């Protein structure tokens, strides 16, 4: 993993003491809330419905055991014994007290973590594929470049007051597990005709009020020019992005209104000026950073397969977990393990301090001290020996994290909604809880197969509802809650935005409505091998609309 250099460490320390001073001045009444608010937001401290919320950056979703233990310590000491992992691969604490925040930040700094740039109109945490550096389908490990982008975008003086927040996601694999087409900028590793590796650059994707699929602005940017190219995009956005209307300020609107070709020409013009300049990334620098992400000391093992059918007979729960929660590793004899944070009836993405300690122990013993946060609000042990799977599973069982449901209907993405969030128009966690209860049966979940449900408590779409195979959006209606259901969204390389098929539903009607969609799919699928999203694409809206609303 990347280690802070002296500059990083000094900066984070300085910022922590600066904020500590600001908190003291605020409490003493020397700063008004109007003066303090932007300062606390710059340090990730929001005020939500019930309390403050501290959002901590997890750069490209990568954590060490030591860091997870510190998060557990914070949860236990200053919060209520749990944390919430988000769709931006960050973690949020929902109950910190203002006086404790400087200490929390100092604790975080001691393990090279912070909450800077987790709010505001700046470049936010860069997210990546959770299997980066491990997946067998990867062209290149995106983490070294993600780290370089982190350094470039941290406190970039020119881009700390953008028209609006800015999110970058990247994947080193052709199978997009990082939803890159729904980010302001998405980067996907690519090879050119000469077999060299570089980056496809997608721009103007996003969710929220106006969901848009990113557009390919450049099909191959070489490593050494990537920073210059991204800086060129940022400059065009910073110059022309709309500051007059918050709802039109994201780059997706600029690209949409001006047209890709216009933006592309402006970016190219800018690029022509900066290309080859100070942002050119020397090969040695990339190598230096890449060294931090060197492969762990894998054992040389012969390729082995996990005998899932056999394990399913011997121990169905274990077999089920093996079937769904493993991802193929590029190193023979190893796999990546998804730790589900989606128990039946739980709040998606929440982990207690005890669970975090247990996960840190498992990572230390079985995954070279490494952990990942997924944008689907689960955790990952990236490098586990196949021979250790049973031990890992048993450790998870002991801590209620052994659900074998990764990618299944109960693996729901869900934002905090109105139970916590000041911007919400409806609750989302209770809907997720009811749905997991409705589809509790493992056999039934297996039969339904891969199906992604995503729930947001308002149009800001932190729960990615637009790209759920089934999406649920909570809205306010006459002082109550109403839920719009969308069908057909997809966050992968086959990106699509879900469609609303008709009027919304009351909360208590939602589980049955979802069940009708599922039943319609099962009745019409070609075989069990045709997933929900493929069946929807083949069949079109009609049968699903009928399932939701009848023939009338």
């Amino acid at each position, binding site marked *: 993993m990347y280690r802070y250099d002296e500059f990083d460490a000094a900066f984070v320390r300085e910022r922590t003491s600066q904020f500590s001073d600001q908190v003291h001045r605020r409490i003493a009444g020397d700063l008004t809330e109007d003066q303090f608010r932007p300062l606390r937001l710059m340090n990730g401290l929001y005020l939500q419905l*019930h*309390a403050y919320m501290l959002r901590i950056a997890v750069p490209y979703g990568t954590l060490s055991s030591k860091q997870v233990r510190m998060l557990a310590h914070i949860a236990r000491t200053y919060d*209520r014994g749990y944390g919430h992992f988000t769709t931006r691969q960050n973690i949020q604490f929902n109950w910190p007290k*203002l006086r404790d925040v400087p200490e929390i930040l100092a604790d975080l700094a001691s393990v090279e973590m912070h909450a800077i740039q987790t709010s505001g109109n700046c470049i936010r945490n860069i997210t990546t594929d959770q299997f980066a550096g491990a997946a067998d389908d990867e062209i290149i490990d995106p983490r070294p470049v993600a780290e370089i982008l982190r350094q470039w975008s941290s406190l970039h003086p020119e881009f700390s007051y953008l028209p609006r927040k800015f999110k970058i996601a990247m994947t080193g694999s052709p199978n997009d597990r990082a939803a890159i087409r729904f980010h302001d900028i998405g980067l996907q590793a690519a090879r050119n005709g000469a077999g060299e590796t570089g980056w496809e650059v997608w721009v103007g994707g996003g969710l929220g009020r106006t969901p848009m699929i990113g557009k390919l602005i450049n099909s191959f940017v070489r490593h050494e020019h990537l920073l210059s190219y991204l800086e060129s995009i940022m400059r065009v956005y910073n110059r022309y992005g709309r500051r007059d209307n918050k709802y039109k300020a994201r780059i997706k609107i600029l690209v949409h209104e001006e047209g890709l070709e216009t933006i592309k020409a402006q970016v190219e013009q800018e690029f022509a000026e900066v290309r080859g300049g100070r942002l050119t990334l020397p090969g040695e620098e990339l190598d230096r950073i890449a060294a931090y992400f060197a492969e762990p000391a894998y054992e040389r093992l012969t390729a082995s397969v996990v005998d899932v059918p056999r394990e399913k007979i011997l121990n169905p729960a274990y077999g089920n977990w093996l079937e769904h929660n493993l991802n193929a590793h590029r190193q023979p004899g190893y796999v990546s393990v998804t730790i589900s944070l989606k128990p039946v009836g739980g709040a998606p993405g929440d982990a207690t301090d005890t669970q975090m300690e247990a996960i840190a122990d498992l990572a230390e013993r079985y995954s070279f001290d490494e952990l990942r946060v997924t944008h689907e609000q689960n955790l990952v042990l990236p490098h586990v020996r196949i021979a250790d799977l049973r031990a890992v599973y048993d450790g998870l069982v002991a801590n209620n994290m052994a659900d074998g449901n990764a990618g299944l209907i109960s693996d729901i993405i869900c934002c905090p909604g109105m139970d916590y969030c000041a911007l919400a128009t409806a609750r989302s966690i209770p809907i997720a809880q009811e749905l997991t209860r409705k589809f509790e049966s493992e056999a039934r979940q297996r039969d339904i197969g891969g199906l992604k449900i995503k729930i947001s408590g308002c149009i800001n779409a932190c729960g990615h509802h637009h790209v759920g195979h089934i999406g649920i959006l909570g809205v306010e209606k006459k002082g109550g809650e109403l839920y719009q259901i969308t069908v057909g969204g997809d966050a992968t390389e086959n990106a699509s935005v879900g469609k609303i098929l008709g009027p919304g539903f009351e909360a208590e009607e939602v589980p049955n409505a979802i069940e009708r969609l599922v039943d319609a799919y099962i009745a019409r699928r070609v075989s069990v091998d045709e997933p929900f999203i493929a069946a929807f694409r083949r069949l079109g809206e009609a049968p699903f609309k009928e399932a939701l609303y009848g023939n009338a």
Partner: protein
Amino acid sequence: MEILAGNELLSGAAVYFSPSGEWVENLQAARTFAKEEVEARDTVIATSKRTHRIVGIEIETVTVNDGILVPDRMREKIRAEGPTAPYAHTDRQHLSEDGHVSI
């Protein structure tokens, strides 16, 4: 009817302006303002702001049912009670230091 809601600075807890001139946790103890009391209401807002202890003051409308104050907005109902999701940590936030905040 209207009430005044806000968050207390140190704990972030939801608080309500009460007839005794303090900001308290209990929504049922909130002072109600009738339509014609706009001036009194706005004076409280201005004075409370000057203490720097109450953040994000909002005017919420409520209906009085058998003497119980029922906020019109779902959001405010949840704010008064704490998260509704049946989960282990759902108690609302409480004032950490003083039990109430005087203006």
